[in-house]
């Protein structure tokens, strides 16, 4: 009985316990379940409320959700390559394209969805299915600012000195900057005019910050105008914040949120049942109601009045972007943004 040996023995015992705990900690996939990555907050709550019960009653499949943002899903799936920590992705276009590029999805067979016929054309491809749309435009405080008309107003007085800006980190930030650049002669692959214009007004911009902190900055009056999506505006309005959505003259931007099967998933069958439930008309209708404020993709859903369009077909007229072209340029833009904006 010596202290030195005790230390070592205890350590060995400790290690054994730790390793044993790790082995026990492996999640045992119950029969009839699917693990889905899910955006935290509004999305996860809405899915828990509406999708999980529907999936259970229709297919007797349990929905397990692991709260992860799109960017985190890609990172986690890539780090745990070969043993995906979840079965289904939910992604916006930027991360979606990265996932295709890195081979993180199983091939998608749209014919396995019974609700396929109720979707608009082009809502599925060889990699996944569209489950919601997002419309991006300008959100502003009508009590503090006159109504802006165009993307270019963001860089003009009186709006620019109250502008809250985010960079290329998010899908909505990237498309908004592209649209601003377009008004000054740029294009989907050329945001140079944006950098030229922003340089002139940079010192006036009220806040340049993290996208996640924008709602808080807006509520605290640090900024009164920003580019954002209808869902965020509707959510903030629902909480009594003075904010209104404006569709810019050149058209609002639209993009789709898609779902994908993780490469190597053992629950492929249930993943399809999950997707099918998400795009079914009753679930899509429930997701559209406040406080969820989703934009549906199922044509049988009667659109809510406060959405910026009368029918889903109208969305085709909105501005769309080709993320396969944008993604390779994004690293350079982010670097450029850092350098231009940093003091």
């Amino acid at each position, binding site marked *: 009985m*010596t*202290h*030195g*040996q005790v*230390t*070592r023995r205890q*350590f060995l015992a*400790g*290690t054994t316990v730790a390793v044993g705990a790790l082995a026990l900690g492996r999640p045992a996939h119950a029969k009839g379940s699917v693990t889905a990555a899910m955006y935290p907050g509004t999305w996860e709550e809405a899915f828990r409320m509406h999708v999980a019960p529907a999936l259970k009653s229709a297919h007797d499949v349990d929905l397990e959700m692991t709260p992860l943002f799109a*960017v*985190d899903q*890609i*990172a986690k799936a*890539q780090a745990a390559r070969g043993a995906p920590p979840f079965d289904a992705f939910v992604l916006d276009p930027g991360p979606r394209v*990265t996932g295709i590029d*890195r081979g993180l999805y199983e091939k998608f067979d749209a014919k396995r969805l019974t609700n396929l016929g109720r979707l608009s054309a082009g809502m599925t491809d060889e990699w996944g299915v569209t489950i919601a749309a997002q419309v991006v435009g300008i959100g502003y405080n009508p009590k503090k600012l006159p109504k802006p008309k165009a993307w270019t107003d963001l860089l003009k007085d009186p709006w620019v000195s109250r502008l809250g*800006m*985010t*960079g*290329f*980190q998010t899908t909505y930030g990237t498309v908004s900057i592209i649209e601003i650049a377009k008004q000054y002669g740029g294009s989907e692959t050329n945001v140079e005019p944006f950098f030229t214009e922003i340089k002139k007004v940079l010192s006036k911009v*009220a*806040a*340049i*910050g*993290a996208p996640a*902190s924008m709602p*808080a*900055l807006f509520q*605290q*009056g*640090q900024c009164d105008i920003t580019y954002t999506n209808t869902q965020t505006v509707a959510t903030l309005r629902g909480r009594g914040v003075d904010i209104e959505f404006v569709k810019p003259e050149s058209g609002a931007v639209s993009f789709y949120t898609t779902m994908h099967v993780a490469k190597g998933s053992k629950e492929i069958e249930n993943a399809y049942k999950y997707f099918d439930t998400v795009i079914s008309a009753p679930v899509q209708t429930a997701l559209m109601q406040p406080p969820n404020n989703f934009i549906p993709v199922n044509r049988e859903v009667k659109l809510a009045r406060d959405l910026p369009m009368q029918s889903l077909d109208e969305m085709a007229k909105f501005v769309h972007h080709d993320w396969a072209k944008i993604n390779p340029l*994004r*690293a350079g833009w*982010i670097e450029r*943004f*850092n*350098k231009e*904006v*940093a*003091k």
Partner: protein
Amino acid sequence: MTTATAEIAAPAARRWSAALRPAEWQLVLPLALAYAAFFLVPLVLLILVSFFDDEKITTMGGAQWTKFLGDRFTWKVIADTLKLGVFTVAATSLIGVPVALVYLGASARWQGVILFVVILPLLTSVVVRTFAWIVILGREGVINQTVLWLGLSPAPLRLLQTEHGLVIALTQIEMPLLLLPLLSVMSRMDPNLRDASSALGASKWRTLFRVTLPLSLPGLVAGCMLVFASSTTAFISQLVIGGNRLVYLPLLIWQQSLVVYNWPLASAAALTLLVSVGLGVAAIAAVGRRGHAWALR
């Protein structure tokens, strides 16, 4: 290490008695093994990944390092990051030491109250604390309302998303990291030494700089090391209070690993942060050792 080999080689009987007092390396061993298994391997993995040229990690090479370190902007960001750490350490020390002295002079009951106040920032989470600072430093925030009411400035001051604002907020956020080690050392200090100093006619300032501070220096140094390491890597606070106008290394690492998925570059940036902040921490430790040796002379 020689003790180690000698011990293993020693006859059983001698080992028996020698082991009653565990050799120092044996005490370090459990943590060292835990780190080897769970930290060193991931670290080596990061080093490996940083030596790939392409984002998909297929071709080896040093291109990412050349690109990262060859950019003048990188060096500016490293300098800014270290500067932020130095400012935060200076601010927390300047304000934390007087708080610790008040603690030292207080009655036992008040010491309990002060200790509670010191850990208060830890009782709210990082994110909530950070948002409280938006409320304080914002355009319509507490400070600006006061300034406007007092007529000190015609327009709201810009505090949020400036380096000053960030350092002020970090001073609160990191203060417990400075004060807890400092107080734990100070509380074991012999009060007679300070009384003797005053009795011998030393002024209060002199007692502070010649007796109290030197004796509590190990605690202060430990606190400074923790504050430096924590403030230079405090991503949320840097991003939310600092905004994108201030670019620090953690932001670059986050962008590269989670937005553009260039993990080789992200690894290179992470290792750069590790080395540069590690050197800063080692420098604080070295200053501490010098100071301690000087004080004990």
